[in-house]
Every structure is written in structure tokens, then in C-alpha cells.
């Protein structure tokens, strides 16, 4: 495991540490003994069949889901019941959802400025300048004054990415960002994510886009029934899976 990603240089670089994580929905054991370390600048792709717990895992990382056992530490702060810890962690993490979840009653620009204005107490002008810069980065600044409902799915998802970037996060979580998109729009979103990766953002991405995974990931994690079955560098993962379950999965989707 020493050869994971070229960017792993220093043990202190560890930005997310998950130790022995267990989670239940009622009596259903969704996550079992998950251990994962994410280093600064690393790009991790999580794949696996539906119901394998991959979304739940990344939703635990910013405590949209609560875990019952184990530890999650995000840049030095452990996620506990303490509201202060949770908001601390959330400020460092941006998240993008499968269904975009832009706020439909606010303009694109207001969607972006909401958190900076209220959490960072940024003056409106400054927040808007920041938002416009980010919209430009995802190439959608010409739509800033529209309502989210007027945009296409791909555009909405790019706005959602910009919104997540507004709080200047250290890590980005993507929960199947292209699953709800028309095929013609997948690429524009993946391009933006790839650009982010290129700029050195740490990210964890749940996706079924294996081509994308191959291109940008430093590490691919394969999950099934709540466990991490296999993790490896992309080329080895695809060419030489160690477990039969992984092999079967890859045979199904490639």
C-alpha cells in the first residue's frame, strides 16, 4: 500500500481519517468496519453496486448521516454530537449531490452567496464577486441571474459545484454527480470536476463513470454490502483485480 498516489508524501498530509466506521439504519448494518485515509490532493473514486453503502459512506464524512461506531476525523476535528465540531467540518467540506439540490427560490448567484454572506459574514459585493469568479470557473457566469429551474441539468450541476466551492473547502465530496444527467450533459460536468482535480483539490467521488475514474483517480475503492472490498491504483484496479467480487462487477459494467 505504499505506492498509493504520487501526491502522498507526508503522513501529516492526511486530511480525512476514518477508523473502524460502523453504521446502521435501524437494524440494517450499512457500513462495516470501514477504514480509510485520504491525503491532501488525493482523488478517490468509490464504486460498487447500488446499496453497497458508498453514498452513505461519503454522507457520513460531513455528518449528513450520523455514524454509530468508529471515528471520522476531518483535518484534525473529530465528528461528534458537538454542533461546533460538525459545523467546523462542514466548512471544510463541499458536497455535490446526485439531484443537484439547488435552492429553487433563489437565483443562481444567490445560491452561491448564501453561505459566504451568512456564515463568513462577507459583505454582499465581495460575496458576489467571489461567486462570479467561481461561476466563471465552471463556465456558467452568463446564467448568474437566472433561476435554477431555467437551467439544464448539466448547468445546474455545475452551479452546484460552484456553490460547494464558495466556502473554499479543503475537500470535495461528489455523490454520483452525473447519474441524473442526460447523456449529452455528462461530459460538461465531468470536465469541470476534472479541472478541479487538475487544480489540486482533494476529492472523493462516488460514480459509475469508469472512464473518468481511470483518467483522474489516484485510488479506486470498490465497495459491496457495506464493506470496502478492494482498493488500488486505477491501472491495477482495472487490469488486475484481486477479488472475484470486483472481477464480477467489472465484467458487468465494462
Amino acid at each position: 500500500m505504499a505506492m498509493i498516489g504520487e501526491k502522498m508524501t507526508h503522513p501529516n498530509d492526511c486530511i480525512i481519517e476514518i477508523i473502524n466506521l460502523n453504521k446502521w439504519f435501524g437494524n440494517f448494518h450499512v457500513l462495516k468496519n470501514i477504514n480509510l485515509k485520504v491525503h491532501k490532493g488525493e482523488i478517490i473514486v468509490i464504486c460498487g453496486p447500488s446499496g453497497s453503502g458508498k453514498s452513505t459512506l461519503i454522507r457520513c464524512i460531513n455528518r449528513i448521516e450520523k455514524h454509530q461506531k468508529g471515528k471520522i476525523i476531518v483535518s484534525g476535528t473529530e465528528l461528534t454530537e458537538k454542533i461546533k465540531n460538525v459545523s467546523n467540518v462542514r466548512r471544510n467540506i463541499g458536497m455535490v449531490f446526485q439531484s443537484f439540490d439547488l435552492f429553487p427560490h433563489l437565483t443562481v448567484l444567490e445560491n452561491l452567496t448564501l453561505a459566504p454572506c451568512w456564515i463568513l459574514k462577507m459583505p454582499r459585493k465581495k460575496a458576489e464577486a467571489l461567486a462570479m469568479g467561481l461561476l466563471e470557473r465552471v463556465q456558467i457566469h452568463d446564467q448568474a441571474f437566472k433561476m435554477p429551474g431555467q437551467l439544464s441539468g448539466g448547468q445546474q450541476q455545475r452551479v452546484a459545484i460552484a456553490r460547494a466551492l464558495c466556502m473554499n473547502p479543503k475537500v470535495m465530496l461528489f455523490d454520483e454527480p452525473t447519474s441524473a444527467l442526460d447523456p449529452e450533459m455528462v461530459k460538461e460536468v465531468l470536465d469541470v470536476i476534472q479541472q478541479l482535480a487538475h487544480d489540486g483539490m482533494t476529492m472523493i467521488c462516488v460514480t459509475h463513470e469508469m472512464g473518468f475514474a481511470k483518467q483522474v483517480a489516484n485510488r479506486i475503492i470498490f465497495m459491496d454490502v457495506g464493506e470496502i472490498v478492494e482498493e488500488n491504483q486505477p491501472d491495477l484496479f482495472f487490469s488486475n483485480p484481486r477479488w472475484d467480487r470486483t472481477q464480477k462487477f467489472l465484467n458487468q459494467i465494462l
Partner: protein
Amino acid sequence: MTDLSDTTNDILIFKPLPDLPAPFESAGIVGWVKENLFSSKTNTLLTLLGIVFLWQTLPPLASWLIIDATWSLSPEPCPIENTGACWSFIVVKFRVLMFGLYPEEYLWRPILAVVIFVLVCTATVLRLVRTRLLIILWSVLPVLLLVLINGGMGLEPVEQSLWGGLMLSTGLASIGILMSIPLGILLAIGRRSRLILVKSICIGLIESIRGVPLITILFMASVMLPIFLPHGMDINNLLRVQIGIILFSSAYIAEVVRGGLQAVSKGQIEAADAIGLKQWMVTCFVVLPQALRHVIPSLIGRCVALFKDTSLVIIVGLLDFLGMIKASAQDPQWLGYDAEAYVFCAFVYWVICFSMSRYGKSIEAHNQWQ
């Protein structure tokens, strides 16, 4: 336009067909009439029956209401031989119907209040001022108008038992609406609280108020409350009734708003959590605006109902608009004009309620997000 010259390098260039206008029969007035009035045999039959019905009822109604009616402004009862409505009755009783027994020498005060009220309403409906100013306006307005009507601050006080008529109805309704919407929203949010104490207090309040008719609440406010209050402590009757109306209305509004809160998807709350908003911000900036948007129609419905419900205050001795109509119809000098009185009453109620529902429609249209 896909002639051969376009195909030289094996790629056909796609050009969409132009949009054509819809065929005549399916558009315009003819299309509408055909579609809506004569689309089937049953529909045609119903249309014809409707025409016959209107033919039979409209002309006599119009002649009573307008053509044969007496429009003179003279303060005497109309001659017996007139078959139409006698609108001079309304003219004579107009002051009482509008302001109750409010003393004549101070009448300019409620009139000024009405003018201000109508101006603010117009500004609201036509969206002449910004939302923030609107909120300030509407919070100052009740205080200002109350001072005008009640007296104080240099104005001669006028006893509350003399207030009445439409002024009293709209006053009770406006303050009722202004207070019960925020209170209802708070109750609805409280009902979804994770704090068990807050939650049970809210549920208790909502359910116990909703389980009782408004008349009972008014009776309790007016008759029973003074018995329970400590000796010497006295809240006047009008205020007690107003509080009763506010409580009653806010319980219903709470349930309406709760429906809207439930319609906001979980993803919205998660997204708001994920960008780091605190819980009150999630509620105020993300959940509530969407929830309220969902329930504008039923919220307006509650406001209309509240306005009409104010006519129940007659049973605790307040003479609102309907009360004054009733009293006027019983005036020995003007006996036999019940029809005019109640038609006028219905018309005024209708105009106000219909305006409210049109305003509701316009808020809905103004908040289309797509």
C-alpha cells in the same frame, strides 16, 4: 434544404423544420368554444340548459338590482309602488355600516385611517415598495390606525363600544391575519422541533384550539376569561375577542404551513446543511420560503375564512359589518329592506374576499421559479 450539394463530404446537415401556426379550429375563440362548450352531446346539452337558466334568471335580477331600482339619495323610504331595489336605504345607512356608532365630530379619524389603509394595500398589491419597507409599513400600520381610531397621543379618546361596521370587521381581520401568520409559522416550526417540550406545547395548542368552534372561543374570551382573571385586572372586550381570533386562526395556519414544510424535500435541507448553514438559517432561508410558496393558495383561503369569521363577533355583542346590516334592517323607520341590506352585505364581503384571492394568485405568479 437537404439537397445534394450538402452531401458532398458524406455529412448531412440537419436543419429543423420551421414552426407553423396551429390550425384555426383548435385555436382562438372558436377553438375554445368548441373544446369547452360543445365537445360532446352531454356538454352541448348542459351548455344549452345553462343558457336557458341564465335567460330565465338574469333579466329579473338585473331589473331588480339596477333597472327598476331607486337610486335617489333622498333620506326617505322609497315609494311603495317601486318594484326594484331601494338603494337610498344603503345611502342613508352608509355611515353606520362603515363606522358603526362612531361619533360624528371625530369621523375624519376613521376616514383618514381608511385612506391610509387603502393606500398601503394598493402599494402592497401593486408592489410599489420593497419587501423590507413593506414589512415595516405593515408592522407600524396597526399601531398608527389604532391610535387614530382609539385616540390618545393628543387625540380625544373614543370608547370602543362605539366602534363598529366594516371598520371593525376589517380591523379585526387585518390584525388577525398580521398576527396569526407569524404565530402560525412559529407553531408549525415548533411542532416539528426535536425538543420534545416545545413540540408537545405546540401540538397541544394547535389541537386544542382546532378542536373547538370559533364561537366557543369567542364566548370564552368574552365571558369566561374575566371570571378567571385576578380581581382588578381587566382586558377590554374587543382585545379579548381579537386575541381569540388570532389564536384560532394561527392554529389553522400552523397546520397549513406544516403541510408546506413537509413538501420541501429532504435533499434541500441536506444541501443547506452541507454548505454549512446553521439550523435557523436553513429554516429561514431555504425551507420556509419554499414551504410558504407551496401553501399560498390555502393560506389565502385561511385569510378569506378569517375575514368572514369575524362576523361571528356579533354573538359577544360587537356590532361588526354584518351586525350593523342586521341592526339597520331592523330600524323601524326603514322596515322591509332586508333584501337590499343583505345583498349589499354579500357584495361588500365578496369584493373584499375576491380581491384577496386575486392577490393570492398574483403572489403565486410572482413567485414562479421556472
